[in-house]
């Protein structure tokens, strides 16, 4: 048979007749119809498989909410016990003489509370990094990670606020910050930006969660009445209307854009709390970006640890894949190198001049009594996370998580090294001060309260993941090409 369609030299399709005299155009039409029919069948099959896949995903991601195992209950009880110890320690701190219960003195007036506060503020930047930046630049692999990042951000920024209250003492005077606070003071800026970031992060967590809550409302029918009532109330009358989808997507986009400058602001303002204080060790114009870059590096490390734990504990290997560790590992390398750059600016440049103002502090860090901690922090907090994940084998889940765990611990000690040694070398030396002013080691009360904030952070994340899907089902489904508006079956308005 002759060719049905030929292409002329100038690219125009030409139809020809074959020997039987049947119009070639007719033949072509028949073939085209057959092809369309085949495609349609394929699409239906693919659609079915997508729906099946979606149903399976829904089932798997709701499993951690269905039932809490024995280990899960013990874990929650353990965290609550630590929180209660922290509450008792706080009661002791506020009712007994602070000179006896805590080690803070005139020189080191910021100890582990403020170190931990800075750590939490840094960790909270994870929300802006994973949930907002990756979302806006349309990195598709962000989808299963976004909610984990958002809940860590919310929990850590709440705990940052708790640390500030613990550090201030006299919580009944907290409202003085609003009644007597001066807008000229960085402390007031910090209070404002923390409150704003908490609200924005909660909204950024909650808005895309609504379709997930609706899935819980409709699918988790075996739950107690109060839990069903909670799902119903929190779903805000969701019925899958196009306008509701529009509201969700629009809000998430606006919040994602807003949370990036907010996240950077909160950490920059925290850095300014130090940089605007008259201490030579903190007298640095580099402090803002230095803190922000450290926060991004900590955020990446924290994310790796959290993803690993959720993947193992809730058996989410299908969604939190090895490719996620691969990209998170690469991200950790990049952010650690950025952090290294700012560390060089922060330490090496003043060390080159070694002015008398900075010499005490720098020599203490480099070769003095805090040198072991300092160099371990450099090793585990910057060098190893910057170098080891460059190798593919180190970007596998387990080795990368081990690297990240050390990076997170080093990040806490890094904040401790920024806060405490700086205060132990006051700007104006005072003679004949009590011995306890010149050395600082946190008291048992302080350590218990800090441990309780860590427990509370983990408790918030654990409890959240036991009530709501820790992976955003609709976002992952959309990434797989599922049309969520078609999947969701509206319910009767009176049921809303």
């Amino acid at each position: 048979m002759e060719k049905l369609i030929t292409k002329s030299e100038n690219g125009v399709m030409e139809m020809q007749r074959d020997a039987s005299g049947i119009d070639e155009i007719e033949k072509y039409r028949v073939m085209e119809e057959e092809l369309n029919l085949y495609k349609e069948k394929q699409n239906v099959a693919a659609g079915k498989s997508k729906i099946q896949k979606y149903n399976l995903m829904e089932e798997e991601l709701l499993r951690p909410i269905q039932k809490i195992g024995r280990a899960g209950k013990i874990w929650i009880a353990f965290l609550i016990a630590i929180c209660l110890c922290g509450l008792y320690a706080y009661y002791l701190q506020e009712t007994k003489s602070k000179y006896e219960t805590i080690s803070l003195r005139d020189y080191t007036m910021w100890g582990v509370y403020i170190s931990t506060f800075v750590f939490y503020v840094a960790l909270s930047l994870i929300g802006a990094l994973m949930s907002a930046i990756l979302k806006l630049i349309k990195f598709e692999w962000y989808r299963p990670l976004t909610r984990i990042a958002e809940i860590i951000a919310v929990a850590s920024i709440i705990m940052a606020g708790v640390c500030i209250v613990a550090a201030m003492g006299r919580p009944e005077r907290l409202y003085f910050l609003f009644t007597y606070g001066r807008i000229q003071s960085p402390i007031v800026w910090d209070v404002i930006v923390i409150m704003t970031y908490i609200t924005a992060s909660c909204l950024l967590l909650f808005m895309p969660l609504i379709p997930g809550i609706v899935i819980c409302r409709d699918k988790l029918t075996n739950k107690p009445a109060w839990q069903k009532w909670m799902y119903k109330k929190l779903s805000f009358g969701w019925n899958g209307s196009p306008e509701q989808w529009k509201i969700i997507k629009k809000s998430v986009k606006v919040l994602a854009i807003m949370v990036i400058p907010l996240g950077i602001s909160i950490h920059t303002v925290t850095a300014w709390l130090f940089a605007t204080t008259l201490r030579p060790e903190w007298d640095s114009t580099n402090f803002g970006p230095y803190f922000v870059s450290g926060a991004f590096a900590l955020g990446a490390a924290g994310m790796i640890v959290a993803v690993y734990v959720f993947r193992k504990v809730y058996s989410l290997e299908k969604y939190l894949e090895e490719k996620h560790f691969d990209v998170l590992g690469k991200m950790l390398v990049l952010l650690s190198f950025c952090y290294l750059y700012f560390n060089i600016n922060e330490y090496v440049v003043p060390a080159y001049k070694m002015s008398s103002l900075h010499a005490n502090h720098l020599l203490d860090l480099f070769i003095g009594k805090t040198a072991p901690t300092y160099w371990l922090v450099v090793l585990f907090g910057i060098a190893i996370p910057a170098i080891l994940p460059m190798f593919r084998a180190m970007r596998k889940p387990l080795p990368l998580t081990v690297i990240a765990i050390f990076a997170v611990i080093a990040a806490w000690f890094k904040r401790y090294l920024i806060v405490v040694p700086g205060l132990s070398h006051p700007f104006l030396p005072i003679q004949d001060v009590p011995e306890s002013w010149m050395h600082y080691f946190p008291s048992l009360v302080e350590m218990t309260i800090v441990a309780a904030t860590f427990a509370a952070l983990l408790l918030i994340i654990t409890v959240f993941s036991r009530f709501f899907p820790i992976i955003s089902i609709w976002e992952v489904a959309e990434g797989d090409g599922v049309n969520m508006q078609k999947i969701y079956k509206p319910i009767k308005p009176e049921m809303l």
Partner: protein
Amino acid sequence: MKNYLKNKMVVRLLTVVAFSIPMVLSAQDGEPKLKLKIIETDSSKTCKAIVMIDDTIPVKGSDVNFYVKRFFGLMPIALAESTDENGEATVSYEKKLPGDSLGNIILIAQMDDDDAISDQVIAKWGTKAKYESKISQRELWASRSNAPLYLIIISNAIIVGIWGTMGYILYLLFFKMKKSGLDYKP
């Protein structure tokens, strides 16, 4: 009996003598006191410090320092001026220093050996200074009510912008969302 009375008399005598010795000594070495006087004529201004014991015995050869009080500490105008046989040390004041808003300055005279022995006098010898309170104006270091306008405007604009956006999202959530769900008929 005679011996007893004699002994008693001796004891009394010795007691009186014993008590009178320090009284006599203290009368001789009484605490000197310093008085500062200012003398102003048409052509000169003079500070005169008079050092006396019990306001009657002049102390000769004591060194007296003269100062003007500053915000913090003292500014010397003449140091170690010795008193004469009348217990007087005199220095002329030739400086032109800023005083308070009325032109007052505080002149102080102190004994060089013991600065607790001193006296001070307010004199209208300073120039009238116009002081502007740094915290009564709109400055970064001023009180809450005197924050710089640019700071108030910028910070409030940012706060209103961000909280306004979040308020709008909350409005969508609380009002539009439910209404849209109720009205939806697929």
